[in-house]
């Protein structure tokens, strides 16, 4: 597998990637907790964006309800931890199958009845909203009063139980983002990846080319959901509190899709680049506003709105394809 990657990927891309991850791996040695917390947020959105991209970018099905899967992941692992002391890594064994099962149900309903386009997006919103309202009344996870994880001292890191300081969380999400990138790359270059692209491009033609579109769409939505659920587990143990009203809120779903939209939907680097562009820009804006003593609630959302507008107008393909052309890199397929 490694041999194939070394052969298939242009030398320039490999060098760039290695440098990029090397710099990120070195960051905790030079930067403080403030920079780390921002980077954690960036990588979290890069990770979840990469997972979302499998469904939208590769297969062409727009999900506006991916908070459903982060939420299910978060609640599965956190409730097992709170109630039974089950470590999050073991909790993943419940979180991922639960997210995949729900995605399977949603996918079955959608694809069995040929729901696509905007109607599919509405269905994903509906599922996330069901979960939001359902969890509000789900007493075992404390309903709307919220589920709280015991907060540990920052002094010692417990990697197994995910209790510790930002540096530990940073390395976990960094490794996860790198893995998500690798998985997306391998999937895209596989038979499954080609079939997904075919479905995205023209579903009728894909069927006429012998592709069992139902099966491959089910795979896409379930893999995407399973990957996304890990983001939720991470979110739960990083923030230590979960409220259905927040976790499953449509704003969380929209946040997940912003990074790949800005970076370039359907590209491998798009979610990562988009997450960096969005977060550094909004953090920069916050710093500037603070310096001038301006306090406007919701300014971040308004700013993101403008960034999105600007990018949709100026770079409809996203930032990454534009950067890639400048760097002389070519990513196959859009």
């Amino acid at each position, binding site marked *: 597998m490694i041999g194939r990657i070394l052969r298939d990927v242009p030398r320039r891309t490999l060098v760039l990637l290695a440098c990029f991850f090397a710099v990120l791996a070195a960051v905790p040695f030079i930067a403080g907790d403030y920079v780390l917390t921002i980077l954690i947020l960036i990588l979290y959105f890069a990770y979840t964006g990469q997972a979302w991209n499998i469904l939208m970018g590769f297969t062409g099905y727009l999900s506006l309800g991916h908070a459903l899967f982060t939420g299910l992941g978060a609640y599965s692992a956190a409730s097992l931890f709170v109630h039974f002391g089950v470590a999050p890594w073991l909790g993943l064994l419940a979180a991922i199958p639960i997210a995949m099962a729900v995605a399977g149900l949603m996918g079955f309903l959608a694809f069995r009845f040929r729901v696509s386009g905007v109607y599919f997006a509405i269905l994903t919103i509906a599922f996330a909203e069901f979960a939001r309202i359902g969890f509000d009344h789900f007493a075992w996870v404390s309903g709307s009063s919220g589920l709280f994880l015991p907060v540990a001292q920052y002094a010692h890191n417990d990697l197994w139980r995910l209790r510790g300081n930002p540096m530990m969380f940073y390395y976990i999400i960094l490794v996860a983002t790198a893995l998500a990138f690798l998985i997306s790359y391998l999937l895209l270059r596989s038979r499954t990846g080609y079939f997904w692209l075919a479905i995205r491009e023209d579903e009728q033609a894909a069927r*006429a*080319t012998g592709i069992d579109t139902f099966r491959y769409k089910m795979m896409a939505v379930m893999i995407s959901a399973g990957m996304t659920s890990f983001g939720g587990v991470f979110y739960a143990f990083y923030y230590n509190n979960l409220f259905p009203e927040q976790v499953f809120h449509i704003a969380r779903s929209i946040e997940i899709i912003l990074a790949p939209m800005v970076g370039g939907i359907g590209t491998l680097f798009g979610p990562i680049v988009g997450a960096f562009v969005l977060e550094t820009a909004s953090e920069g804006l916050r710093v500037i506003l603070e310096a001038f003593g301006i306090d406007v609630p919701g300014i971040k959302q308004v700013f993101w709105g403008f960034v999105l507008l600007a990018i949709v107008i100026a770079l409809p393909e996203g930032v990454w394809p534009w950067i890639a052309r400048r760097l002389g890199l070519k990513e196959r397929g859009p």
Partner: protein
Amino acid sequence: MTVLLKVEGITKRFRGLVAVDNVSLEVPQGAIYAVIGPNGAGKTTLFNMIAGEFAPNAGTIAFNGERVDGLSPDVICRRGVGRTFQIVKPFPALSVEDNVMVGALLRKPDIGAAREWTRVVLDRLDLFDKRAQRASSLTLPDRKRLEVARAIATEPKLLLLDEVMAGLRPTETDRMVDVFRRLNQNHGVTILLIEHVMRAVMALAQEILVLHHGAAIAKGAPKDVVREKAVIESYLGAEAVH
């Protein structure tokens, strides 16, 4: 002579309209068979039933000795029927090579093997030099050949061509005719085509079926069919026969 495709008395109704009315045809293994007729005669509907886009209201379709009517398009493709669309449907954002790769991967799950086969197919359809281009940037004749390439890549026993010559200049038509003749003679692909371009039909087909208002009005060898009175009146017009 074995029969590859046997259509018996199929009918398709859309609400009150009978689009295809009790049509039968037999395509022998290795043949090139043409379906002609004026616009709205039911040709594409007939095709769509064979390709599995929709099931006939009555009648049967047998491919390779097995009933296939009512099966879905992907299953029919896997049984060995490749098709093109009247309105071309390449995968626009993918490269020419990746378009054909999708077809090749159907029977060659290994990426390397599929890529090799893709190159062979591209070469056969004169698309090898354009393999890195995006499909959306191709000219119409190239896109039409790309669709044929993608269908051929699935290694069909029967190829359904829906007006692949439409909109082509005479020289391009001749080139396409040449491509199909080679596919048929050198690679044993049986071809069933819908065509308006009589120049191509006369050059290729061994047998013709003429549809008019959903019904078969003539059937036989090209030179006989074009002289039948009903065909001339309904479709060709008197000046077409010399």
